[in-house]
């Protein structure tokens, strides 16, 4: 169910997004939402597993930072409120179809090549398959253009791991905010 603008912004200004944990609404960051097993609004569990596993291969740490819940929260708001990088890339909104298409393609590719979903691949197999996808020319890829999918998911992972004040701290780079980015969650 999409969040309305007022509800979204209310949570956003307090530094969190409205998730539901055990049927109880709670304002949580994506990292907290992941840790507490918050319900997903838009992505299916299978889609979340595939996207999380892929994001973790692209940039280790993305899973723990709550990539699936971040994507789910941003896909659950009006596209005009979305914070996703794909907004810049002239892909028609809404973008749910793009992400579900990538998740489906990941699992289908892994299933064909390794007889299991992407999230169940060994670390080496997942890394190798990510390299194939990054190359863009994948004969048995059935989803949004593979190279583009790599670019977008990788950018989402970088946003989450390095695009927020904690990420700057990890790089020993001063954040120097005029206004702290609470809304990013």
């Amino acid at each position: 169910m999409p969040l309305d603008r007022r509800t979204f912004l209310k949570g956003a200004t307090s530094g969190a997004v409205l998730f539901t944990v055990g049927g109880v609404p709670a304002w949580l960051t994506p990292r907290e939402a992941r840790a507490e097993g918050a319900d997903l609004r838009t992505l299916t569990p299978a889609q979340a597993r595939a996207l999380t596993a892929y994001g973790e291969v692209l940039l280790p740490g993305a899973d723990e930072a709550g990539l699936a819940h971040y994507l789910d929260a941003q896909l659950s708001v009006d596209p005009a409120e979305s914070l996703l990088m794909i907004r810049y890339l002239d892909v028609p909104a809404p973008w749910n179809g793009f992400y579900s298409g990538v998740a489906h393609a990941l699992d289908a590719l892994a299933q064909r090549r390794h007889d299991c979903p992407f999230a169940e691949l060994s670390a080496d197999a997942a890394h190798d398959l990510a390299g194939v996808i990054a190359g863009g020319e994948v004969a048995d890829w059935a989803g949004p253009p593979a190279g583009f999918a790599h670019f977008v998911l990788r950018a989402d992972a970088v946003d989450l791991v390095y695009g927020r004040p904690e990420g700057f701290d990890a790089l020993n780079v001063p954040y120097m905010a005029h206004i702290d980015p609470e809304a990013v969650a």
Partner: protein
Amino acid sequence: MKRMKMVDAVIVGAGAAGAFYARHLAESGRSVAVLEAGPGWQHTDLQSSLIWARRLRWGGERVATTGEHPFGYGFNAGWGNGGAATHHYGTWLRLDESDFEMRSRFGRGRDWPFDYATLRPYYDRIQKAVGLSGDAEAEIWRPAGDPYPMPPLATFGQAEAIRRGFEAMGMHTAPMPMAINSQPYAGRAACIYDGWCDAGCPTGALYNPLVRDVPGALAAGAEIRNHASVIRVTSRNGRATGVEYADADGERCFQPESVVVLAASAVHNPAILLNSASDDWPDGLANRSGQVGRGFMTHSVAGIYGLFKEDTEPFMGVSGAQLSCRDGYGKDREQGFGSYQWLIAPAMKPNGLLGMAVTRADLYGDALHAFIRRASHHMANMLAMGEDLPDPDNRVVLGEGRDGYGRRPAKVVHRFTDDAMAVHRHAREEGLAVMRAAGADEAWAGPLGTAHMMGGTPMGSDPADSVVDGYGRSHDVPNLVLAGTGLFPTAGANNPTYTMYAVALRGVERLIDDWDAVAA
């Protein structure tokens, strides 16, 4: 349909041009209604984050971008009060004298309906009002103009590193002129060099419409209606009679007026005119010339990157550039016709479309972590911006289908000319050579990008091949005025905002002077 109270002027778009017109017309005593498709941003909305910055980009109905070199509308366009200028970088360069006389001097493109000397006083007045930081004497390429009112902005490690490369190759650099305060000016604070310009500058050190024109327009009595999506401009007996729009609740409204100012962007101005076709205007309102939508232009962008041993502090500075090089601004060269310029040492963050990670899209996993860690302290970058000559086949058209209001979507068709691509390739090779000459351990280039949107409703002296005159007034519809970068007959290679303001100042002052005749 809800009928609104009559106003003197209805302005479509509260971006740089629309807010500028709104303030001037309201201050001259005219009643003004501004229809803005997006939200009513405040300074407090401008959170320092490249993730947050995305909400400042276009969030309205889809704009399709097609052609061999599609224009990047999603990144370049704006949304809400201030428009694209809320997230612009404040790189304010004047166009060169040659840019105004492309047809006369080179037999290429179009001539503007006035020359540089005519526009110079407007550039000078704008820079005094806004406050530019720079060093006019150091800019050996700069056309005649008053000195900048403020000294240049500070430079940091990556600028100094790249400067070495230009000097080693016998090329020139100078501080980039920026609409950013190097010291307190016009009641606004000085820049603190945090590199968050892309997310909008809440202190107003970087000039944007939220600093002066939006509050000035409101203070003078203008009304800005946010989330107002324009459907069409209505007309009767050769004159514009009003604007139909959908309000924030989706209700269809009609705003009658004496004068319409379209300032919706170089994409949406032509789209609105084309969607305003009627029995009297079968090819689109004010389109007897057939030029509405044609000659759309953008700048080519080549990103050049390097890694150095020294600490380059790439996160410090401003998003625009620290230094400028316009040794390549001459039009005619063996490697393609057209100008290019270097924007040297924009501040970089790890993420975002212009961030460090994107420059090495081939890396992932632990290798990406390692790269970002190194790049955060040792990277340097610069961008070559190249000229796109007006091509009638590069255009804004209407796409297939209609929405619930009967409106067809905007579609942009774009391909860089062979000359523009040759200039782009030349600049790319030059940039790699500069980076190596600067001592970079590694140097690489990014893919072709696009920046800025211009043309599509070109100014001209001849109504047969242009849409508006040198003041932005329609040749066909006497009470219809257009504003913004869409008026540019040629693009040059310099960032367009400064020129847009100079052209708008010239246009709005003439409109105020001629009001009775235009609005009659």
